[in-house]
């Protein structure tokens, strides 16, 4: 179930329900082992992502990735990494509840983000993502297409970020 936004909005916003999300930290030298377990090649440059089936991996830093999948696949991911640990130590932590995901959709989505995100959004290509800030709140920003973004925000910051987005969205709708 998604939570719809208010009516007077330029950009369609929604809050996604929780879904399986993991923080993976592993020595860069061991990335191939993790890639093998996941069945996708983990990108090694911050910002890049890779996907297979329901699995999506985004490289956040040289030794840090965030993994997304669906409920049906969660146990398989956890079991695979648990099996990997004795051979190749790493850290896989479930953070499904740590963040909430807001989707932004529409031609003005980037403009809406620019109300509080200092990044040059044209430098974030579709199919990439990054950690950055939104009004000084740390977020993970994924760009799925020219006009589709996801904000992953720490759960306790959600009310603040959501209120800012709503306010700015009404502002965009007002057109001035």
């Amino acid at each position, binding site marked *: 179930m998604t939570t719809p936004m208010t009516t007077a909005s330029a950009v369609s916003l929604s809050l996604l329900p929780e879904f399986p999300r993991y923080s993976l930290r592993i020595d860069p030298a061991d990335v191939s082992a993790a890639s093998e377990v996941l069945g996708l090649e983990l990108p090694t440059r*911050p*910002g890049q992502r890779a996907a297979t089936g329901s699995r999506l991996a985004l490289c956040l*830093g*040289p030794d840090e990735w965030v993994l997304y999948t669906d409920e049906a696949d969660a146990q398989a991911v956890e079991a695979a990494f648990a099996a990997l640990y004795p051979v190749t130590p790493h850290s896989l932590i479930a953070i499904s509840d740590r963040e909430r995901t807001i989707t932004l959709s529409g031609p003005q989505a980037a403009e809406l983000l620019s109300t509080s995100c*200092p990044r040059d959004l044209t430098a974030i290509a579709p199919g990439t993502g*990054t*950690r*950055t800030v939104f009004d000084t709140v740390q977020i993970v920003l994924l760009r799925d297409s020219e006009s589709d973004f996801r904000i992953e925000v720490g759960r306790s910051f959600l009310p603040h970020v959501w209120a800012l987005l709503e306010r700015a969205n009404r502002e965009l709708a007002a057109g001035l």
Partner: protein
Amino acid sequence: MLLIHCPYCEATLPELEFTYAGEAHIARPADPSTMSDEQWRDFLFIRTNARGPHFERWRHAHGCGRFFNAVRDTVSDKFLLTYKAGEPKPESLPE
């Protein structure tokens, strides 16, 4: 607001993503118990306070999370160079 080049992300990004982390190239002594009180004081508290190029640490805290080194001119507030943690102190600086 400055722009800072993260040597790990290989991108020049807004200062808001970064945090300052003190002077660079001050390694924690391998065995502090062998240090005299004066040596330990110097490690803890004595810093260069440069006027001009200053070697300092930053963290791309709201990005890749990495600590790295930078040379910043404290007069102009311009970054001359950034490089990865663990890399040697550069011998020459760009103009």
